[in-house]
């Protein structure tokens, strides 16, 4: 142990240390902004000062070598200043417009495409998947990469009716705001956990396991004389929460894990209130390395939106305008009982009027 006092609870560094001078000077004094072209925007301060932002995609999982490359670019073009966005893009902050094109050229050359502004598809917010998490029903990075390779034109162009936010989560814990995304891609388990009865008594607190189940499917049971739990299979909807509190309730299943797709959520208050995403495609199989079924459906949904929505309309606003029946018709997704909610507030989603579009 070193002789110096151990530092704790210092918190993050103060952000001011990292702000570009033009930001410090004009903090809180910005007047307006303009998107100059895809990936490049300028913010103009009341003082007349300008800051240019060049936004580039990252795969979020970044090697320190890449961080160093970004640092070098920042030194070369931006006085050493950059930031990341809430969707895991990197933004280079410039004051000299002459540096914009050379920076873009360097970024493009290194494989970090510039774009994601305005009415486009930005980076996919996502999670760990098979790279790091124990609960994952699918991989995260691989699915995201496969989808974005296909949707890439919508990142570097700006031809959509509005912003389209895609998010991905590898299990029902939904790390990230996937439940309020224009398109949410969600890993799902579809079979009840398998209980390792020899491990339960050692690894798990039985009352916590019982309490963890949203549908009350877990109950205490004595198996082979030892205290364990059992699952009433008809009551299990595979959320994996019992597994979170008890590693002996293994939920991962190579054969039956897969992916579901949800649509029409949003977060902003613009025009309509924030809303949850709703189930579109209940289940697609895991098909690594490129998950063609998932990519296919996502692409189809994006195209449908691109063709049909009005300017400024988000995915969910468009669907609500035309009605869900028409959405199912247009998308060709077969409507099934899985689409009908049957959890706590299910009744609130029933159609309680005769305001129906009669085909």
């Amino acid at each position, binding site marked *: 142990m070193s002789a110096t006092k151990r530092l704790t609870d210092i918190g993050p560094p103060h952000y001011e240390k990292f702000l570009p001078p033009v930001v410090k000077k004009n903090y809180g004094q910005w007047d307006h902004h303009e998107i100059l072209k895809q990936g490049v925007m300028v913010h103009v301060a009341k003082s007349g000062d300008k800051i240019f932002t060049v936004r580039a995609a990252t795969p979020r999982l970044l090697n320190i070598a890449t961080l160093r490359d970004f640092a070098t670019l920042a030194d070369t073009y931006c006085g050493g200043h950059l930031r990341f966005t809430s969707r895991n893009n990197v933004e280079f902050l410039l004051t000299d417009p002459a540096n914009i094109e050379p920076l873009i050229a360097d970024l493009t050359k290194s494989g970090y495409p510039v774009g994601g502004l305005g009415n486009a598809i930005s980076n996919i917010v996502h999670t760990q998947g098979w790279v790091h998490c124990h609960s994952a029903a699918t991989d995260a990075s691989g699915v995201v990469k496969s989808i974005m390779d296909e949707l890439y034109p919508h990142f570097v162009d700006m031809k959509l009716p509005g912003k389209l936010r895609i998010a991905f989560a590898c299990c*029902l814990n*939904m790390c990230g705001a996937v439940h309020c995304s224009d398109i949410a891609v*969600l890993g*799902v388990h*579809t*079979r009840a956990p398998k209980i390792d009865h020899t491990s339960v008594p050692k690894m798990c607190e039985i009352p916590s396991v019982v309490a963890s189940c*949203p*549908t009350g499917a877990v109950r205490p049971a004595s198996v082979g004389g030892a205290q364990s739990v059992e699952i009433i299979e*008809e009551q*299990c*909807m*595979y*959320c994996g929460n019992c597994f979170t509190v008890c590693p002996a309730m293994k939920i991962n299943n190579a*054969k*039956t894990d*897969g992916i*579901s797709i*949800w649509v*029409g*959520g949003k977060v902003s208050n613009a025009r309509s209130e924030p809303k*949850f*995403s*709703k*189930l*579109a*495609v*209940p*289940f*697609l*199989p895991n098909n690594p390395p490129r998950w063609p*079924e998932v990519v296919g459906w996502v692409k189809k949904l994006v195209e449908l939106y691109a063709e049909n929505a009005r300017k400024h309309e988000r995915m969910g606003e468009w669907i609500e*305008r*035309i*009605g*869900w*029946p028409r*959405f*199912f018709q247009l998308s060709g997704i077969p*409507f*099934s*009982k*899985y*689409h*009908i*909610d*049957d*959890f*706590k507030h*299910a*009744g609130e*989603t*029933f*159609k*309680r*009027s*005769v*305001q*129906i*579009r*009669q085909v």
Partner: protein
Amino acid sequence: MSEKRATPLLDELEKGPWPSFVKELKKSADTPAVNDLLGQLERSYEEKIGHWKHGGLVGVMGYGGGVIGRYSDLQAEFPECAEFHTLRINQPAGWFYTSDALRTIADIWERHGSGLTNMHGSTGDIILLGAKTQALEPIFAELTAAGFDLGGSGSDMRTPSCCVGQARCEWACYDTMGACYDFTQTYQDELHRPAFPYKYKLKFAGCPNDCVASVARSDMAFIGTWRDDIKVDNEGVRAAAAGGVDIQKEICDMCPTRCMAWDGSTLAIDNSNCVKCMHCINVLPKAVKPGDDRGAAILIGAKAPIVGGALLSSVFVPFIKMEPPYEDLKELISRIWDLWAEHGKNRERVGEFIQRIGLGNFLEQIGLDPVPEMISAPRSNPYIFFGDEVSEGGQA
């Protein structure tokens, strides 16, 4: 008969422009039962509390419903209304009467009861208010002889009711009175002999205006609608505009899907987005009319708050041609009743039952395909009970 009850508080309610129920009561003040009723009611007004006790089982032979038993809890003081049961008489569809029919009812009720009625009860029945137990059979005999019968009460099918429909309304998309009568006759046994987990109400409304409030208070609501285009007579629209209707503001801007456009001379409707709400038709009854391909949407599950909270009914069959003898519908109703009778809990309305077992499961059990018209939006929660078909490379 005991002396005339003093009713100073009730007397206050004889004043004022609205018709007075106290005056109605007093028209029979000479009837002992009504005299005591007035006395007991005055007491309630003084004490701010009711003086009735639970009914218990009273009724007519062979029927399980149609009579609500009622006893005073001040029997010693008001002996003449100690027993004060009501009979629910199945109203004629659409509440049409001839003067003779009304007189027939009045005569029977004068002979055997208090002379007080409700025209009508909230479910739709003719309510005869205040009979003694011993009078029930004689009343029933006279009523049936005159062509009337009891309605429902208890855990049975309740007396169906309907709007005036095609008898007087140009918007009726099917024959509500015909259907109401037909279903009532078909289900006489279910109406008179409680054998369900709880009550089951049917109401028939001819169009989405729903003048019989079926969406709010029937376990099964038949609401007329149409499938083809609205009929617009643009000359009529222009006449209305000339007459002072602001077509843009009052019609186009109030359409729920804003599927109409008005250029000052033509009202254009994007019928694929019309949700048949009736608004434009209501405001322009001479110029805009429902289409010709008419039928009904069927909704299920409305109820008052007890036990699990109030429900509006929800879409079950988005469109069906309403044609006698309604075989498909009756087939569907049997399947619902069978399932609910077997698995419903005591005092669980069908709307609550569906929520408990899940609409998807319910549909599967009764063999009806799910369609997106049944929901306002697909589920947002990911707690999906996948079946075995979802697996091993499959896709759902």
